[in-house]
């Protein structure tokens, strides 16, 4: 396979078009060839259901989370961009807080539209009319061992349901298959995790054995599917206060994503 020439990776300094969240559209555009390479050549991603995303107005995209290093948000964004073309609206995404204490990575994530995972941030972004991607499994999902692949972890307290209701945004469930194999986690070094403050320190077949080469993700085949949006505005407004109902709705979203993960797994026919 011949590799397409890649432009140099864009510098992390902010351009004049950055917004108040630190998202810089010029950076996101300049990083696109790199993501496209990962999308098309490396992981050969198939994305379906992009047309189910609302054309305008806010939307809360809820996806499963896996793969030790969360590449999924960037691939979902790349999938949407490729399908929407000129009408593309860049989604913002909530990122594990810890990432924002890291040098360089924190800056790159912010330039690409990531914000610390706080309901205040998510609500403000939705109210501004943005598409927001959340991963309710959080670190539990990304850091789960390889043996638990394709099975969604529990969804916390269902805070994302409250967010969607408060912002009047539809929920778009999204299933990602393939991120599970990019770094198969077979063990952990909890001591190093504790020292560095990281949520976990993974052992994969190549990491830390091969050093930096272990950071190269395995070229699994991916499928991303956006499901039918789920509107919540027909519910009475005091549903936000009803813990049991919120929890039930969150579980419904989880089941839908789980079902889509299984159906896409069947359609993928082989991980590599």
């Amino acid at each position, binding site marked *: 396979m011949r590799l397409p020439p890649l432009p140099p990776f864009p510098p992390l300094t902010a351009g004049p078009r950055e917004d108040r969240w630190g998202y810089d559209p010029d950076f996101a555009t300049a990083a696109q060839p790199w993501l496209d390479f990962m999308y098309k050549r490396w992981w050969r991603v198939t994305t379906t259901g992009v047309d189910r995303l609302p054309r305008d107005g806010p939307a809360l995209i809820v996806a499963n989370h896996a793969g030790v290093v969360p590449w999924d948000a960037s691939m979902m964004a790349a999938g949407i961009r490729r399908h929407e073309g000129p009408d593309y609206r860049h989604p913002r995404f909530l990122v594990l807080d810890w990432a924002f204490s890291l040098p360089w990575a924190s800056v790159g994530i912010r330039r690409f539209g990531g914000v610390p995972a706080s309901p*205040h941030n998510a609500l403000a972004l939705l109210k501004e009319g943005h598409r927001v991607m959340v991963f309710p499994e959080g670190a539990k999902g990304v850091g789960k061992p390889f043996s638990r692949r394709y099975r969604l972890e529990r969804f916390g307290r269902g805070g994302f349901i409250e967010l969607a209701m408060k912002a009047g945004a539809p929920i778009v469930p999204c299933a990602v298959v393939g991120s599970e194999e990019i770094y198969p986690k077979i063990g952990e070094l909890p001591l190093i995790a504790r020292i560095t403050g990281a949520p976990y320190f993974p052992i994969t077949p190549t990491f830390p054995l091969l050093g930096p080469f272990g950071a190269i993700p395995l070229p699994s085949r991916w499928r991303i599917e956006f499901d039918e949006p789920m509107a919540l505005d027909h519910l009475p407004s005091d549903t936000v206060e009803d813990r049991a109902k919120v929890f039930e709705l969150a579980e419904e979203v989880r089941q839908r994503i789980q079902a889509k993960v299984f159906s896409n797994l069947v359609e993928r026919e082989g991980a590599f």
Partner: protein
Amino acid sequence: MRRVLITGAANRLGTVLAAELLADPQTELVVGLDTRKPDLPPHDRFVHVDADLRSPDLARLIAPHRIDALLHNDLLQFPEPGRSARTLHDTNVVGTLQLLVAAAAQPELRTVVVRSTASIYGSEPQAPAFFTEDMADRYPLRTRWQRDAAESEKLVAALARRRPEVTCTTLRFQPILGRTLDTPIMRLVSSPVIPTWMGFDPMVQVIHGDDAVEAMVVALRRPVRGAVNVAAADTVSLSRVLRRLGKTAIPLLPGAYGTVLGLAARLGMPRMDDDTARFLRYGRGVDTTRMRAELGFEPTLSSIGAIELVAMAQAEAA
């Protein structure tokens, strides 16, 4: 608001504020409390009270002026040679306590406005991008300045509870920029090189000095109860700020930051306080909805606008 007491009247913001209030014919009297004489032309409606906040006869000194509003503008942010950390705490906390006790003894008092700081929220990597006023106790208070500010805010809240007829407003300012100001952020901005944290480019939000004074005037005229964030609407990346100012950034390894700055301070460079150091690493944004909707104040300059103004002033001076 007719008869106003301003503490810290000799510092730049206090002096400008006093002049601004005197320009309004509605103002009957401005009492400037400070140990230094404010740099103001003589005015028949201005009285200078030469006293320290910590002086025990504060109540007696201000009683004859029958004030109905108090603007507390004398919280000190950083120690200096001749102004120890001990003095700072005394002025900020004990001074505020004495002042509020003295003010509460004035029967006509209706308005209290305090110039506090958004540093009270801290600068944290995982913080929400925009702090709202109810998030003051979200993170531990890490620096002396934060603890002082939090303690004096508590004292104001106690007064507000005890004297319900007095409207107490706490204005939480983001770092105040202005050519003539001596604030930690201005010291940093005026130095030729700026030490940054390698690998970090935080979002910062500031307010221009003129807007800060205007916010205090507005708060005196239309006080609201409780804390209000005061800042320009936008946040900008530090890298953009430095580019606009034409400053050289010296990225320092996070582990060596304190050591290098300590050495630089020994060589005579200005010392950087902990709040500014953390601000340069993680930045901070505040939500200004309450400022606009309830206080009814809109800054004229954006953060980047304030920075451009300072950059132009610096270019002119050079």
